[in-house]
């Protein structure tokens, strides 16, 4: 083993292990302790999950944007390790935004799905994240792969403000924002605080997942390098 090589442990970092129980505690608070909503009753509790998933998908696109810009601007090699895990986790939360939204839509709106502007633009976000993953695996050269994926990473981020403003720009079935709006939040404080707690815990889980998977990528490329060096030495060629 060379000096520059990193020896990763199998167990995730302690605070990463903590993130999942913390998330479960915040879920339990949202499910059993916070009072019901006067309009929707119990079913509104999906809000905590749905909104957290959505904000995670958006936040991850911002991280992807920063990484992509760094990759294009400074030829940063971090993108080789971080790019794919970020997109994978982003896709995960986007898919669960759509799934939980659909499950919430049936009892409140009366339909599982409708092609309104908010739902359509979120669907496009999922497609773009999936496209990123396809492009990543399709490229045969890591330099062109990084560049083309970084451009797509910037485009993915460009979709997020459209999703956010879709409910204000167009008529939709989806309701406008409850929190970040002119005239103050239209959500009771206990609900808002619970939502923030669930959101923070979800962000923690996301960060842990991305970091762990990025380390896997790093380990993988390290292994490839070692294999390559072994092969070269077996052939008796100078390194």
């Amino acid at each position, binding site marked *: 083993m060379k000096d520059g090589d990193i020896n990763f442990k199998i167990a995730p970092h302690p605070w990463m292990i903590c993130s999942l129980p913390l998330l479960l505690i915040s879920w339990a608070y949202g499910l059993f302790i*916070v*009072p*019901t*909503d*006067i*309009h*929707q*009753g119990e079913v*509104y509790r999906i*809000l905590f999950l749905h909104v957290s998933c959505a904000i995670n998908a958006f936040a991850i696109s911002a991280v992807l944007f920063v990484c992509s810009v760094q990759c*294009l*601007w400074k030829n940063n090699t971090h993108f080789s390790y971080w790019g794919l895990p970020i997109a994978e986790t982003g896709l995960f939360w986007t898919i669960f935004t759509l799934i939980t939204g659909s499950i919430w839509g049936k*009892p*409140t*709106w*009366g*339909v599982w799905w*409708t*092609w*309104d*502007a908010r739902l*359509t*633009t979120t669907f*496009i976000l999922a497609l773009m994240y999936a496209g990123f993953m396809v492009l990543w695996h399709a490229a045969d050269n890591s330099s062109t792969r990084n*560049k083309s994926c970084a*451009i797509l990473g*910037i*485009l993915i981020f*460009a979709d997020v403000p*459209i999703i956010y403003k879709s409910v*204000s*720009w*167009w*008529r*939709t*079935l989806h*309701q*406008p*924002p*409850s929190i970040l*709006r002119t005239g103050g939040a*239209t*959500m*009771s404080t*206990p*609900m808002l605080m619970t939502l923030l707690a669930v959101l923070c815990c979800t962000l923690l889980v996301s960060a842990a997942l991305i970091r762990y998977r990025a380390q896997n990528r790093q380990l993988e490329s390290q292994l490839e390098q070692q294999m390559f060096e072994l092969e070269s030495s077996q052939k008796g060629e100078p390194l």
Partner: protein
Amino acid sequence: MHKKTKLLAGGIIIIATILLMSVLSLQQNTVYFYTPSEAMAQKSSLSHKKIKIGGIIQKGSVDWQAPALSLRFVVTDTEDTHIPIEHTGTPPDMFKEGQGVVVDGRFNTDGSTFMAETLMVKHSEEYQIPSEGKSMNTDLLKKSILEKE
């Protein structure tokens, strides 16, 4: 020109194009729903098309015949336009007088009633705990359905 600059310029152009295209296409083609006033004004051109109408369920207009699954009500907006709606099927739990609604269907042959195939409740962005004892903020609901920035 430097390679990086070219790449950046290309990226910006692609972003701008996609943003512009999506904004334009959504504005032109996807009028998600018409308000009752718009639907009445364009009734002759819309009469044979499958459209969506979104508005407020008028107070005192709901007639629900559970055994026949027949639902009749009137949808209205801020401009005092009233459209009678007919729908077959159980409405969602949140369907009630004064609530927002989006109906998908078409006008009947004489244009007097809108036959809704799909009925969707459009609620406002308000979430309140019961102890605060407030009733539904109707102004907020109207704004959320009928007014855009």
